[in-house]
């Protein structure tokens, strides 16, 4: 057993650290968030140039042969800088699904240019009623000649406005909440009949509500097999969860460091407030929480490509429960120990807190994943 990073992985970590230091000073991030797209094309080009967009894909798919550990390494640094470029929806979700079940033609048309930084994706799975059940899909795709026609609604689709292609989870057969009968479609972002309502999110990302009104796509738009998309989507979301966990560990490290610095320097009653035992113990709990989060993220990154789906799902859900718990504790404690300053927009603390809060709500809360883990563990 060896849980240390290879030399190459250390170099990747250094490069990602440098990127965040150079590009994501807090005031710089504020400027990036305020741009029209909400992320910077030059940063995206740099990520492509550094090989980050292709690092986790197999060489035969045009990638550089890495995997979840490489994703973990960069996502953790992205968490430290609260990076806004759409790595998760494009590379982890979109690229991940195309690599997993795409045809040779789809890989060539979509994955190759994505790795070069020339295409971005979004994954449209959520609907108003679906909460965290991936099978609760009512957007319908019906046969139309040799192709399909899509009608319905998708919500809170991250990066939809910038995406060249949107990967849509649609119902092609079966009834509501049935796992069978779901199909993935690759739809052009500017397809006729597709309308968007774009908005910023609480944590300065961009998302959209999408309405599909008889959007026509060809037979070649199907990603994977017709009616067989559920396990593909489930695995993609599990991979995204593990990547998010890595991002959250980065957020926790950064916010803990800021809080530690603050309680060492902020004086009240003639001493730094870090001299008070009540804050010392809370700070220790923050660090313990962040350590647990890091451990669970590493565990999940190592198990997320296991052959056994139960192992994969348990790894993702277990890590997400931990991240939800630790993220809430570290975020809330950081705000509390900063006092009033912690709730201002001016300091980065509130922004880490917001991101950690939203990470808990993405792809299932602590409660949701506790139930999922419990069902998987008790059935096994």
């Amino acid at each position, binding site marked *: 057993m060896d849980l240390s990073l290879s030399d190459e992985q250390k170099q990747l970590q250094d490069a990602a650290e440098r990127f965040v230091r150079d590009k994501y000073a807090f005031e710089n991030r504020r400027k990036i968030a305020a741009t029209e797209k909400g992320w910077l094309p030059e940063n995206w080009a740099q990520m492509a140039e550094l090989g980050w967009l292709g690092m986790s894909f197999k060489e035969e798919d045009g990638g550089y042969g890495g995997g979840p550990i490489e994703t973990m390494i960069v996502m953790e640094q992205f968490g430290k800088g609260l990076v806004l470029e759409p790595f998760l929806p494009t590379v982890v979700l979109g690229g991940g699904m195309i690599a997993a079940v795409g045809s040779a033609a789809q890989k060539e048309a979509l994955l190759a240019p994505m790795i070069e930084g020339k295409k971005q994706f979004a994954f449209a799975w959520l609907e108003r009623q679906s*909460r965290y059940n991936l099978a609760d899909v009512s957007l319908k795709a019906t046969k139309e000649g040799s192709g399909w026609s899509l009608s319905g609604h998708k919500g809170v689709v991250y990066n939809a406005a910038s995406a060249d292609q949107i990967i849509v989870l649609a119902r092609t057969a079966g009834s509501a909440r049935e796992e069978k009968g779901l199909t993935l479609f690759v739809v052009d972002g500017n397809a006729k009949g597709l309308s968007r309502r774009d*908005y*910023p999110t*609480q944590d300065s990302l961009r998302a959209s509500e999408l309405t599909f009104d008889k959007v026509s796509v060809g037979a070649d738009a199907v990603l994977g097999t017709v009616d067989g998309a559920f396990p593909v989507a489930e695995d993609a979301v599990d991979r995204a969860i593990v990547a998010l966990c890595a991002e959250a560990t980065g957020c926790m490290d950064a916010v803990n460091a800021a809080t530690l610095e603050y309680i060492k320097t902020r004086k009240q009653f003639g001493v730094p407030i870090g001299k008070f035992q009540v*804050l010392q113990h809370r700070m220790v709990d923050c660090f313990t929480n962040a350590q647990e989060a890091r451990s669970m993220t590493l565990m999940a990154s190592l198990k997320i490509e296991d052959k056994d789906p139960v192992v994969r799902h348990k790894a993702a859900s277990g890590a997400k429960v931990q991240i939800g718990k630790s993220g809430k504790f570290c975020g809330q404690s950081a*705000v509390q120990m900063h006092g*009033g300053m912690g*709730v201002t927009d001016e300091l980065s603390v509130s922004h880490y807190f917001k991101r950690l809060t939203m990470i808990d*709500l993405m792809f299932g809360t602590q*409660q949701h994943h506790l139930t999922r883990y419990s069902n998987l563990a008790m059935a096994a």
Partner: protein
Amino acid sequence: MDLAFTAEEQKFADEVRAFVKANLPADVRDKVKNGKHLGRDDYMRWQQALGKKGWLVYTWPKKYGGPGFTPAQRYIFENVCAEEYAPGIIPFGTKMVGPVIYTFGSEEQKQKYLPAIRESTVWWCQGYSEPGSGSDLASLRTKAEKQGDHYIVNGSKTWNTMGHWADWIFCLVRTDSKAKPQEGISFLLIDMKTPGITVKPIIMADGGHEVNEVFFDNVKVPVANLVGKENEGWTCAKFLLANERLGIAAVPQSKRGVEALKDIARAEQDNGKPLIENPGFAEKIADLEIQVTALEFTELRVLSQMAQGGQPGPEVSGLKIRGSEIQQRITELTMEAVGEYAAPYLPGLLWHGSNEEPVGPEYAHLAAPRYFNTRKTTIYGGSNEIQKGIISKMVLGL
């Protein structure tokens, strides 16, 4: 001992309800019900209606123009107002400076300031915290130097709530820098229109403007605006903080919050069923409701003690601690109920009253800003760490 209200108290509850229904402007009620932000005028219209009835200063004794409510009546009044979606009464005049003036002020000050507080024609704000003086309030440095019949005030105050709407500010200022920290402080009333005062907004994590920094640059304040004796302002400060901590428990608001949370959990879907039927989530709501009940009965016990003639003591700190945690828990669970639809951030709708359609249901876009904003409740009015320090020292003798 009897938990049930008497027939007379029941009658009083009916009277309050009828009054609120008849006098709370419909648009203000709707804003409160839908969790929208209120403007200065929204608060003023409601408070002036209460003022005419003589109920705005419902905690004041009759002697100073209050209605002389019994503790039971106070409790009924607060609960009925909350149930009918009345906005919370702004405490700075009614619960903070008013009682300080009638307890420590001169006859002249009582005549001058109390009527406008009772009728809500003047908006007060608070000048307590400073950038370097938060939990350690007594370390404050805003200076007032006596020159003839004026004080010259220099310094700055922070976390000043709604000061951009205020006509007057009550301030703790340092009048003797050589004395022990608590012994050189005075309590001053300052007209916000006085030259030399600048109000600078602080933008909070939810994107809103609710608090300010207030700067004083050679501000001339008549000596007649000193409340109590010079250098004895700390007595007023402590008295005021004890009152502030009582209101902070916010039991009626939390009861309303739990009901609103249940409504949301009934409306939200989870695997084709209402979320409220999810056993894990239902238990969280049940746990919260039990916490609110425990808080309510603790407050009732304090009110009952006060009915016997006591002032709120250090045990009130316990109410603040639990009350603030419960308020936070409500917002936390509301966000959990809303799920991914908590993510859309619509500042126009949230802050500027735009007609933009919400994304998802109306309650969804308010969930996260509320959660972020409510983090302040365990910080303001003396952080919960400070409150626990007070209890361990004053109640437990540690």
